[in-house]
Every structure is written in structure tokens, then in C-alpha cells.
């Protein structure tokens, strides 16, 4: 058997396993072009948030505002058909920054979240990436507490009776928003394709809404339109279908 194998190999025109001369390579492989994809994406966002009237109120009353950069974690899902992408998105603000402790009164964000949808078109694309221009709509929600601090000791047994001046237990604002952002995403290369996604955008409330309180009905509160610049860094996983050479 081994002699037969040896004779077989000797009789061959080229040694088995030897790669053909790469000078025969006469073209760059075509760009993978999948017709449509299902996409899920998760990541983090840093947002610079403006609520001008409430910020004025804090400033006038020497209330130190919480750090204006809000970190979010988010999850998006949706799909792409050729050059159009549509996604549903939702995010939740995390408390990554150490709260201000040295001020007499300080406002802390106790809740922040958004949910919405966006649709985009890849205005530029090449072998490796797609640059989308996205527009979206949704709702954004914020809640703050204002802490009035005192050095006066309070017995735990009396804590419910304690009414610290300068304390606001709940200030809530919800806005419906419009959003515009530029998204840079790696191009899908395989049937199941992971990629990095970066997004730079701005969103703003459609109209000013009055601040409310979760603790009591609030009247005569200032109205604000949330304005938010944000930078998103995410990781997406796409399931791609209907491959066609470009």
C-alpha cells in the first residue's frame, strides 16, 4: 500500500499540499454583500444632559447639581435591509460617579432611562465599514432628589418624622424626543458577524414639559426640554442573509 502511495505521489504533476503560484491571484476578493441582517447590539453611552430651567433653579438656590455627564447602558435590536437600518433602542442610566458629599444641598439623579426607535441610511460604505445617518424618536425620563444636609443627629426611631429643610424627595421630567446621530459600524463579513459600533448624536425634547414629583402633585413647576449630546460605544451581533457578490 505504501509503495502504491509513493508511486502515486511521484506520478503527480505537483507535490500535494503545495500551494499554486500566488501570481495566479488576479483579483481582490469581492466585498461581502449580504442583503439583509437581524441585529442585536449592546453597549454604553455617555451623555451630556441639559435641563436649563431646573439647572437655573438649582443654581439660584445653591444646590450643587449632580455631575452633568450621565453614563448609560443600552440594548438595541432591529434589522438592516440593503442600506437601510431600523432599530428599537432602550437605555438605563447608571450611577457611576461618586455623589457630591461636601455640599450643603446637592441634587442627585436617582433615575434615568430612554426608549425609542431609529431608522438610518448608510450614506457611505466600503469594504470594511458603513457610515449611517440615523434619525429617531422616543421618550426620555429623569428623576432627581435634592438632599438638604445637616449635622444634627436624627434617631432612627424618629426618621419618618424628621423633615429636613431643603430636601426634595422627587423631581421628575419626561420628554418625548427627536434624535439625530451619525453611526460608524464595521461591515458584516460572515453569516454571523460581530462588530463594533460608534454613534455620535444629539437628541432634544419635542416640547417643554413641566417637572413633576413622584411624592406629591406639583404645581407651578418650571418646564424643560431635555437636550442631550451623546457618544455611544457598542458591540453588535448580526445574522446575515442572502449573500450576493457586490
Amino acid at each position, binding site marked *: 500500500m505504501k509503495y502504491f502511495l509513493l508511486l502515486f505521489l511521484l506520478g503527480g504533476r505537483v507535490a500535494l499540499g503545495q500551494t499554486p503560484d500566488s501570481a495566479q491571484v488576479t483579483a*481582490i476578493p469581492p466585498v461581502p454583500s449580504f442583503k439583509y441582517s437581524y441585529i442585536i447590539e449592546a453597549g454604553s453611552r455617555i451623555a451630556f444632559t441639559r435641563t436649563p430651567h431646573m439647572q437655573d433653579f438649582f443654581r439660584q438656590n445653591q444646590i450643587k447639581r449632580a455631575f452633568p455627564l450621565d453614563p448609560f447602558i443600552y440594548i438595541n435590536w432591529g434589522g438592516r435591509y440593503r442600506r437601510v437600518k431600523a432599530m428599537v433602542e432602550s437605555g438605563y442610566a447608571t450611577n457611576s460617579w461618586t455623589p457630591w458629599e461636601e455640599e450643603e444641598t446637592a441634587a442627585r439623579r436617582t433615575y434615568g432611562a430612554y426608549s425609542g426607535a431609529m431608522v438610518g441610511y448608510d450614506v457611505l460604505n466600503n469594504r470594511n465599514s458603513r457610515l449611517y445617518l440615523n434619525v429617531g424618536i422616543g421618550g426620555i425620563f429623569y428623576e432627581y432628589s435634592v438632599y438638604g444636609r445637616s449635622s444634627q443627629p436624627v434617631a432612627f426611631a424618629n426618621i419618618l418624622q424628621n423633615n429636613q429643610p431643603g430636601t426634595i424627595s422627587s423631581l421628575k421630567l419626561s420628554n418625548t424626543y427627536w434624535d439625530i446621530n451619525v453611526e460608524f459600524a464595521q461591515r458584516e463579513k460572515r453569516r454571523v458577524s460581530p462588530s*463594533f459600533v460608534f454613534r455620535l448624536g444629539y437628541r432634544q425634547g419635542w416640547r417643554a414639559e413641566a417637572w413633576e414629583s413622584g411624592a406629591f402633585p406639583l404645581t407651578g413647576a418650571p418646564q424643560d426640554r431635555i437636550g442631550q449630546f451623546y457618544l455611544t460605544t457598542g458591540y453588535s451581533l448580526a445574522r446575515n442573509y442572502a449573500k450576493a457578490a457586490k
Partner: protein
Amino acid sequence: MLILAWLLLSSGPAAAQSAPGSQARLVVYRQREFGGNPYTIKLNEKAWSELPTNRYLQVDLPPGRVKIETATDYFSESQTLWLTLRAGRTYYVKAVEDVDFMTRTLLLALLSDEQGQRETQGLKPATIRLPK
């Protein structure tokens, strides 16, 4: 007159003219790419130069086998192209960056003279620069 001036001033490899009689001419080029990284090109195991986008490298070599290779770093994979050069001929090798999740590579392919000449029109010569 304007056309003549444009022809004189337009860049692109001198390889459109024939290679020196006893030598072969090798042109490795990259077209404009969105956000492309520069790569180090090696010839016969020796670093030749960095090749950014929208640039070409050109060298005259003695006939024979030549190994063209892209150097690697942590995030890039190596690509190798073997050519058998013949005297008096010009070889156009097109290089295109291919990026995938966490990896990237510079694809290399030998193209026809016509396509090579056409695609190198307007490209600028790369400054010969070795990696740091």
C-alpha cells in the same frame, strides 16, 4: 497644451513606461480607502516601506522569484504573494485593507497591466519609510 500640462503634472508611477531592459519593475499600490491603516510591506523578508492609502511603492528588481509580504502586528494578519518576475515587465500589485472583528489584513493581488496602469493614475508615491 492644457492636456499636455495635465499629463506632465499628473502623478502616478513611472511604471507606465516600460521597465529597464534587464530588470523587472514592481509597483505595489493602494487606492483611496475610508479610514485605512498604513501597512509595512516586506520584500524577500526585508522591510521595504510603509504603504498608506492613496499611495504606491515602486522598485526595479532583478528577474526571479520575489516574495511580497505584509508585516503584522498584534491586530493584523500577514498576507504573502509570490511572483516570478521577468525582465522588462512591470507588475502591478494592488493592496486593499480588509477589516474584520478584532483583526485586519492587507489583501494583495496581481492585476493586469491595463488595470494597474488605470488605477495608479493620480496616486502619489509613498515616502519610503521603515516602521519605527
